[in-house]
Structure formats: C-alpha cells, structure tokens
C-alpha cells in the first residue's frame, strides 16, 4: 500500500496573481518549496483543443528545470473528447503554439502499472515514462466544464492511460494519486477558459494567476475557489477527496478571491450534464466529442459526430443567448433522463446489456489485520444462529425482521457429489457468483498451505435490490467486506462482514455462504445473514412498515427471487455454463449500438449531418481525397502532416 508523503511542516500552496507567466510561475513554485527531488523531471501538461498550458508558462518551467541541470521529459495529457474528435498530440501542440517543444504522447509508451491488487490500475497499463519518473510535475490549465463544473489539475492525470471501461473517473484519479503522485503541481490560470464548458470550447479570460503546490487535491480546491465553484461539483475532485483526502495541515499563501468576469456553467446545465455523465458515460463522452471541434485527422466519414455537431454547435455558439443555453441544458437533461430510464429498463428486463462496473477495493488494507478477519465469524455467527432457528417454507427460505434488518436463511440441495461441487465452485468466490453482480474487486490477503484463500477483502457492486427499485431512483448496492473462509471435511464456508458502503446503499450486509455434504451424491447450499439496505426516498415516504402484510410479501418475494437466481448461478458455475449479467464496457465513444441508432436517424432524416460543415473547414473535402492527401499522391510522394516535433 503506497503512503502519501506529508511534509512535517505542512505544505504551502502558493497563489500568485497579476504577474507575467514567467515571474508568476517562479514565485508560485518558490512558495511551494521549489523544484523537488533529484534526477530527471517528467512534466505532464494539459494539452487540449480548448484548454492547454500556455507556452510562456511551460517555457518558464522547463527553463527552471534546465537551470537546475536536470533532464526533462514533457508528456502531453490529451482529454478523451479531443482524442475522440480526432486530435493528436502533434496537432494540438501546433495549435497551442508549442510546436517548438517535444511533447510525448503517454499512450505511446504504455506499460504495466504494477499496481497493488486493491487498485483499479491492477493489471492495466499507464505511461511508463511517468511511472518510472524520479520527479513528477503536473501542470493543469484552468477551465470550466459543463458536467464537472471545473477541469483543473486532477483530470490531467487521466491522460496517462487509456479510458478504463466501467470505472469512475474519481476512482481512477484517486488510484493514480496513490500510485504515481506528482511532487509538484502547477495550475496555469494565466488564462481561464470559461463559459458553459470552457474545457471543450475555448473562451479565454485573462486571469493572470499561477497556483503551485505539492498536492493536486489541495491545488484543485484552491483553483475551484478562484473560479467561484464548488470543488466537489467535479466527480474527479470529489472522488479524490473521499478516497485520498488532503494533507492534515497545509497553508495557502495568496489571494483567494474569485476571478471577476468569469462566466460559470449555469447550475441547471451543470445538473443536467452531470446527471448525463453519471447515468450514461458513453453518451456523455459522445456529446463531449461532438462539442469539440474536429481535429485535422478526424474521420470525415463519422456521420454520428457530424450529425451531433449539427445540433450542438449552434447551441454552443452564443452563450449570452439564454434560449440556446436552455436548449443545450434540455439536450443534456433529456439525454440523461432517457439514459436513466433505459438503465432502469435494462435493470429489470435486459440485464445482459448493462455495463459491468470496475471499482477499486474501497478500503485501506493497512487498517485491518488478520485478527479482524478471524473476528468476522465470531461477530456474525449469533445472527446466523438466529436465522437458522427460523421456520422455513417449502422454498427453503426463512426470515424475520430485527431492528429494521432482515435476518434470513435460504437453502437448496442439489444433486451433485460434495467433492465434485467444491472442486468446481470455489466458496471464496461465492459473493461474486451471486445474482445481479455487476462487478467488484476481491483481494486475497492470506492463503492456507494448499494455496486456498483464507482471509479476503472484497468490494461488490450489485443492481438495486429488488430490481424494480431502479424505476424509482434506487441505486445499486455497493459494499466492502472483510471475509474469512473456513474449510472442513464435510463443509466449507465463506463468512463476511460489511465494513463500508461507498454509496451508502447498505447499513448491514453480513452473513455466511456454506456448502455442506448431504449423503454420497448431494450437496446442501445455504446462505444466512443479516441485511439492512437503504431504501430510495420515494419508498421512505411511502413507509412500507405501515403496511406490514404488503411489506412482508414484498420482502419474501425479493429474497426468494434473489437467492433462487443466486443458487441457479452456483449450479451454472458447477455445470460450466455462463450466468453473469452485464457486458464489458466497450472502450469507444458510444458503442456500436448507439452509433447505429444515430446513423439510422441521420439516414431517416435525409442525412441531416450532411448540412453545412461547421467543423471549421472551408469546404468538406471528399473523404477519399482527404485520406489520399494524407497518404500518397499521384506522383508517389507520401505526405506527412507537419508542425511540431512531438511524437
């Protein structure tokens, strides 16, 4: 587990205003304690079509590094929307006036992140240059953002690796902070791209400010304050605050008054776009790409983006027009509402189309030692004994309420010999085999002599339970558990106790999954436990406890359905059949289905996307000719796009 280094005296964040970029940077970095470390410096800079580090500030930083006689490498973090819109690092560098600098694309040297098992980055790749850097410096540029409120330094880290399907940006940024933290962070606010979404549509406001510090979370807190925005409006910042936090002590040296004249995203747009980003990340990504002017190497045949640009570009053209802004808000709001409704539909009748979730473990392993795992059985057993004493119905389910929690046991006997069963169904995986499991992370903390898990920590994400709660705003279950596995000659059991619920979906979720021998050719499956889940607001208002018969019937039905499917999943695992719900999120702007849908709509509307091309080109070149111009002409000369020396 990587620890965050905290200077004994507390770090200083320097805020320097109203100085030229060169002087501002020097002073801010000096306030922050100067250039840290020794050896090569790797600088990760924000480089987007709308927002990028200013050439003056970058030159000043590189000059400072060179004066310290240290080698330097510059990596360019390109926002996903720009990559989706066809921008490359050389094109962006040229457009940003950084063509004379060598800017490397982090995606060109991806290597194993070598991250711990509890991390989202485990098994994934990120820029090897950044990973191995002796000293890392992060430079962000200030901008507003329609969905996140602001985009400062933390989102720049996300450019170090390819998008991780199913993962929340905040979780990813937090894991990057833990694994490959920068030692110096600079926020370039010499200019701030403001408006509804300064991060995708450049609208520079001179703000003449440089912020520097050791901790990007604190720097972004300061930056958000300067923009007059709620820091936690950004899910990236909120995720890092939650998972990593800030140093226990720090000092801000400088003027924190918000910038004057800065236009912020209207609150309704922020809610609508933020809601869309949360409910339909793929669609939000597509809209962001469509809101971004296309790069020189953009695919001219992308009818989807062209069609969407036809709709979005006029709405983004004049922010002073409240009608356009209202329409833009409506587009996001309607899309978000449709996506939410679609998700609710899929949760109930089309679970195989849901995107699976990828999450970090969600707890600090150093907070729990083997004794905590051993104690799980002791703590949970009294409830399990109570559950096992309950009368059961013909379906093998028995339950009752205790202090608002459901104490239950459910069993099934299968016609499978016990030895064959435990060979094929690993009880230590049992939670991930349950019904409606969307994803999670399991970390084995100790094993027995035969290499079988004994102590585990696990995070599980499930669909809302019961599923129909999704129709009334119910959120999925997200719980983190400590576990211990017990093995005997005639039974194996996985005991768990929930220690955290990152989304507040559960107060209690403790129990045991057991496989036990029943004669020569049968195995008994049982799950017992105690659960108390958070009920959506609508159902809190209804308060089913006032209707005990209905409440009990719904509870019985919910448990019966969930565990019937759970046992069916275990049987499917035994028989080697697929059973998991969901699909791996496709790493593409919108997925084939959505592209086909938009393509269909474009065709049906008579090629609406083929109207005036507002991408910035004077004339849309025929696709073949444009591609040919980038390759080989009739004389056999191969043409390469010039400008910049970035790879």
């Amino acid at each position: 587990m990587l620890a965050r280094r905290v200077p004994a005296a507390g770090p200083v964040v320097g805020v320097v205003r109203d100085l030229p970029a060169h002087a501002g940077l020097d002073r801010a970095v000096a306030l922050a304690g100067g250039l840290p470390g020794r050896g090569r410096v790797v600088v990760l800079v924000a480089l987007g079509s709308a927002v990028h580090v200013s050439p003056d500030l970058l030159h000043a930083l590189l000059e400072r590094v060179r004066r310290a006689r240290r080698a330097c490498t510059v990596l360019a973090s390109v926002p996903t929307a720009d990559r989706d819109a066809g921008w490359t690092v050389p094109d962006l560098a040229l457009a940003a006036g950084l063509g004379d600098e060598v800017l490397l694309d982090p995606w060109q040297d991806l290597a194993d992140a070598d991250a711990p098992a509890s991390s989202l980055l485990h098994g994934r790749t990120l820029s090897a240059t950044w990973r191995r850097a002796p000293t890392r410096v992060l430079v962000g540029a200030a901008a507003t953002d329609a969905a996140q409120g602001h985009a400062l330094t933390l989102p720049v880290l996300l450019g170090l690796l390819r998008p991780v399907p199913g993962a929340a940006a905040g979780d990813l940024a937090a894991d990057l902070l833990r694994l490959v933290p920068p030692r110096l962070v600079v926020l370039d606010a010499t200019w701030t791209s403001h408006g509804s979404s300064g991060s995708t549509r450049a609208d520079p406001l001179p703000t003449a400010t440089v912020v520097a510090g050791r901790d990007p979370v604190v720097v972004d807190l300061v930056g958000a304050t300067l923009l007059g925005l709620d820091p936690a409006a950004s899910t990236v910042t909120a995720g890092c605050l939650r998972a990593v936090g800030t140093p226990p002590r720090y000092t801000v040296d400088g003027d924190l008054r918000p910038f004057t004249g800065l236009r912020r995203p209207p609150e309704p747009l922020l809610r609508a776009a933020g809601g869309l980003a949360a409910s339909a990340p793929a669609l939000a990504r597509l809209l962001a790409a469509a809101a971004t002017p296309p790069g020189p190497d953009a695919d001219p045949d992308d009818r989807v983006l062209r069609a969407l640009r036809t709709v979005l570009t006029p709405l983004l053209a004049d922010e002073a027009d409240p009608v356009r802004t209202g329409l833009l808000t409506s587009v996001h709001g309607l899309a978000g509402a449709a996506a939410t409704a679609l998700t609710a539909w899929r949760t109930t009748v089309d679970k195989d189309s849901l995107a699976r979730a990828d999450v970090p473990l969600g707890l600090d392993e150093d907070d729990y030692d083997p004794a905590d795992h051993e104690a799980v059985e002791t703590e949970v057993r009294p409830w399990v004994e109570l559950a096992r004493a309950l009368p059961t119905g013909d379906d093998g389910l028995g339950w009752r309420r205790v202090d608002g929690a459901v104490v239950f046991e459910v069993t099934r006997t299968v016609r499978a010999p016990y030895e064959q069963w435990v060979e094929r169904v690993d009880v230590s995986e049992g939670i991930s085999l349950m019904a409606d499991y969307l994803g999670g992370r399991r970390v084995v903390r100790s094993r027995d002599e035969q290499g079988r898990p004994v102590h585990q920590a696990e995070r599980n994400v499930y669909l809302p339970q019961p599923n129909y709660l999704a129709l009334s705003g119910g959120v999925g279950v997200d719980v983190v558990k400590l576990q211990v596995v017990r093995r005997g000659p005639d039974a194996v059991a996985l005991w768990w106790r929930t220690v955290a619920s990152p989304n507040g979906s559960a107060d209690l979720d403790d129990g045991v999954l057991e496989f036990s021998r029943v004669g020569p050719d049968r195995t008994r499956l049982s799950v017992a436990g105690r659960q108390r889940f958070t009920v959506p607001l609508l159902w809190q208002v209804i308060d089913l406890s006032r209707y005990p018969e209905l409440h009990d019937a719904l509870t019985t039905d919910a448990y019966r359905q969930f565990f019937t499917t759970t046992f069916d999943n275990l049987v499917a695992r035994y028989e080697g059949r697929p059973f998991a719900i969901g699909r791996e999120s496709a790493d593409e702007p919108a997925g084939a289905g959505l592209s086909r849908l938009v393509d269909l709509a474009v065709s049906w509307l008579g090629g609406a996307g083929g109207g005036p091309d507002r991408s910035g080109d004077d004339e849309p070149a025929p696709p073949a000719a444009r591609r040919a111009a980038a390759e080989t002409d009739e004389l056999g000369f191969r043409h390469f796009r010039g400008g910049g020396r970035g790879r």
Partner: protein
Amino acid sequence: MTGANGLVGSHVCTALVAAGHDVTALVRAGSTPPPGVASARVQLTSESLAPVLADVGALVHCAAVYAYDTDPDLLAHVALDGTRAVMDAAALAGVRRVVLTSSSVTCGSSSTPEPVDEDHHPGPEPAPAYFDVKVRQEELALRLGAELGVQVVVACPSVVLGGPVHRLGPSNALLARYLLDPTRSTYPGGCDVVAAEDVGTAHAVLLERGEPGRRYLVSGTSLTWRELHGLVAELAGVPGPGAEVGPQLSAAVATAAGWWARVSGTGSLLSAEEARTVGRFYWYRHDRLGALGWSPRPARETVAVALSWLLATDHLPRWVRESLRPLPEVHEARPLRPGPPPRAARATER
C-alpha cells in the same frame, strides 16, 4: 444407432449402454459425437451406411427432423429417403433387427378425451406435415422390413419432455411457451407426455423383446392442456392457467408469433400447423409396451425434470427465468452435469 445427439437419441443411447449393449453412434459430418460411446460419421445413404453396419446385430433409427412449419420436402427426405437408406444398408449388412423411432401421432387423435391404442389410425382431422411424414415413414419401414427380411419394430413416443435441451424442440417448447405467455392461457384438448429417459428405456425393451412388425406406443400420462399447464404453473411457481384459447384464436396467435420470430430473428414458439391441432385429444394407451415390463414415471416428475433442464438454458430469457419460483422438486429433479474443473485461477493478491 442414428440420431444419438438428439433428445430421444441421447437417452436411447444411454439406455442401450446401461442394458449392456455395445453401441456405435452414427452421426453426421460436423456433429459432435456423444461422449462415452464409439461413433462413426456417416451420411444417411445406403452407400455410406452399409460399410459401418457390418457385424452389427441391430440398428436403432432415431434420426429425424422434428419440426413444424418446415419444408415438407426436407421432412420427407430425412424421414423417407433416410429410412430407405437405413433399411437397404441394414439388409445388405445382415442387420437382424431395426427399431424405428416413429411418433404417437401415427395413431391419430380423438375428438373426445379417450385414449387410443396402436390399432387406431389418423382420420380426416387436420394434421401437420410432420404427422403425415411419420405415417409414411412407418409404412415404408414395415414394408421394406418384410421385403428385405429385416425385423422392424416401431416405437411411437408421445410428447417427449426432458433434457439436455440444446435445440428447443416442439415438445419442450410446450413448456417454454406457457412460461413466456403473459396471459397464461391454455387450450381445449390434450396431449400425452412421457419422459425422455423413459423413452430411452422403452427402446431398449423393444430392441430385446419387441415383436417384429408391430407398433408400440411409448406414452406416459394423458393430460388435458389445462392439466398440463396447471402442472407447469405449480412447479414453476407462476399463476394460471387462465382462459382457454380455441383453434381460431390459436391460429391468430401463431401468426403473430411467427411475425415476431421473423422480426426478432428467433424461433417461433407456436406454428400455424400446431395451432390447427388445438382441440383434439392426443391421448394414448401403452398397454402393449406395458406387457413387456415397461412403465413410465408420473407426469409430475416428467414435467419437473423437463423444467429443470429448461431453466439451465437460454431458451427462456433471463428476466423470465428470474421471475419463476420453482419448487424444490424442480431443482432436485435432475442430477447436475459437472463441467470441467476450473484451472487454478488465483485471485488478485497483495
């Protein structure tokens, strides 16, 4: 035997092996042979079959196309040309006995709830092409047997329920159809259901003790459609059955089901041909086979086993499977088939 990969054939194969016979499964090129028995890839032509039938004492001919609203020429080709090829090859190779898997529909049906026996024949009632082809197949096999000096015993199973369910045939589709029907409707008339495992055992009995030239109904329990659907509902934990849908409305439903099947690219659960059989009683007596010592299991157990197999497939959409509340006897109805042991995949570790 032929057709060892089918629902009936797989159980025939198992029963023959259990009875101590040395079984070779004849399969089509490209098919996966059944595990645990010898196999040979053949085509249903006498030239392809004759060489592999040398030193074979008996042949069980299960291979067939069991489908409705299918090209009648295809049905006829497999049933008639294939049977002719089998009989010719058997005669050439000196095979002593052939057991032909026919169908109970060759004994016709009744307009009243009275079971019929082997001496009954189809009347003028509407019948799908499949029924006609099976009648012709039986007649052909018995005639050729007499001509060629090969003993032919005909097995006539009724609605065979059970698994494993790879392709959803018309028989198991009867259960799936009810579970997919939101109205939980039923039909007038009835059918006879028999367990696939019992049909397999019946073939073994007929191979050993069946009288040449005779037909044997392999039937289980005769039920009205309402009784069958009620059994399915009870075992699956769903409501119903509700209203009774007559022949005209069944035909309309079949048309709609066919349209939806074309739109969705799935198979139709109710064909127009099947709809025409609504209202008749396809009830049978198995006294003749019973006299040889064979007896079927109860209908409840038959349906429970079939449901258990059906729930282990994707023939029912996930949301339908998850809406069911099967009784414990469904879960315990069949022994589980273990998959391969997993490779040792270690979870992520610190």
